[in-house]
């Protein structure tokens, strides 16, 4: 199981702060996000558009990074604050 954690405006748009994704083999992050969107019943673009910062186990990674069972994946969108 990979734990996908959503923050800020992505959490708002997805309607949830956490999605668990079962993994049987190391999987590219891009594909994990697609599985996460399907598991949560949301449009896949919500997780990958709007330029989130992706971090696996507290390290930032690109979208082709291989995610393993037990990994924590954080999606952090930019925030500007203000007004």
């Amino acid at each position: 199981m990979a734990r996908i954690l959503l923050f800020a405006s992505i959490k708002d748009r997805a309607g949830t702060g956490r999605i668990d994704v079962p993994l049987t083999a190391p999987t590219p992050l891009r594909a994990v996000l697609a599985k996460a969107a399907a598991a949560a019943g949301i449009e896949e673009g919500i997780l990958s558009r709007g330029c989130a910062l992706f971090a696996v186990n507290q390290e930032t990674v690109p979208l082709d990074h291989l995610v393993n069972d037990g990994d924590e994946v954080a999606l952090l969108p930019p925030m500007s604050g203000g007004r």
Partner: protein
Amino acid sequence: MAGFTDEQIYRYSRHIILPEVGGVGQQKLLAARVLCLGAGGLGSPILQYLAAAGVGTIGVLDFDVVDMSNLQRQVIHSYDRLGVPKAESARQFINKLNPDVNVEVINERLTATNVMDIFGRYDMVVDGSDNFPTRYLVNDACVMLGKPNIHGSIFRFDGQVTVFKPKEGPCYRCLYPEPPPPGMVPSCQEAGVLGVLAGVVGCLQAVEVIKQILGTGDALVGKLLMYNALKTEFRKLNLRRDKDCPVCGDNPTVTALIDYEQFCGVGGH
């Protein structure tokens, strides 16, 4: 102690007795020149604590005026200063707290035309601004000028803080190479924000500014500190500089400031 008045020794005594600060550190604070972008939600705690710490010169850049809805979180302003330019209101607050501080009021909108000149006058920039075009403008100017950029941002109950330090860590574009499509990230006015969250994040920024000035502690360079107020969770992510970053990478392609409103797809902000 050389270089201090008796009043300063007394005022800053709680700093001076700290081994990591001492008289030497307090002198560094008094000699420092820090530019604070925004005298709003993040700017308020930043300005409060930098002024209290005796940062000798603080530039306050804000072109807005104090509004009632600000008072939910912008704690350096006051009910009797509604309608006053925020940078001026900030100056009044700081002068009452610490007359050692020389406040430079910059009652202007930051643009590609004035940024290099303004930033050039300070040692570092602490960013409490409230829109994406400014974030990118600030980033690019700081990279080009080699100035540390102490970044903070908030959304509802989530906040983040990091220090973008040229040559030592990533820049904002390494994290977010493209701005979000317009409308994808609501502002505080649209989405709301827990007022005190601005206090927490702004204070964390002020800590990083002080550590940069003193040259002590572990700076949040190459690290993003995330805070969620509802879950009371702190998280630290390790960031990497992007070697191919168009602004701070090994072969930069953006070597001059651009039109940031256009870059962010917003017209006439």
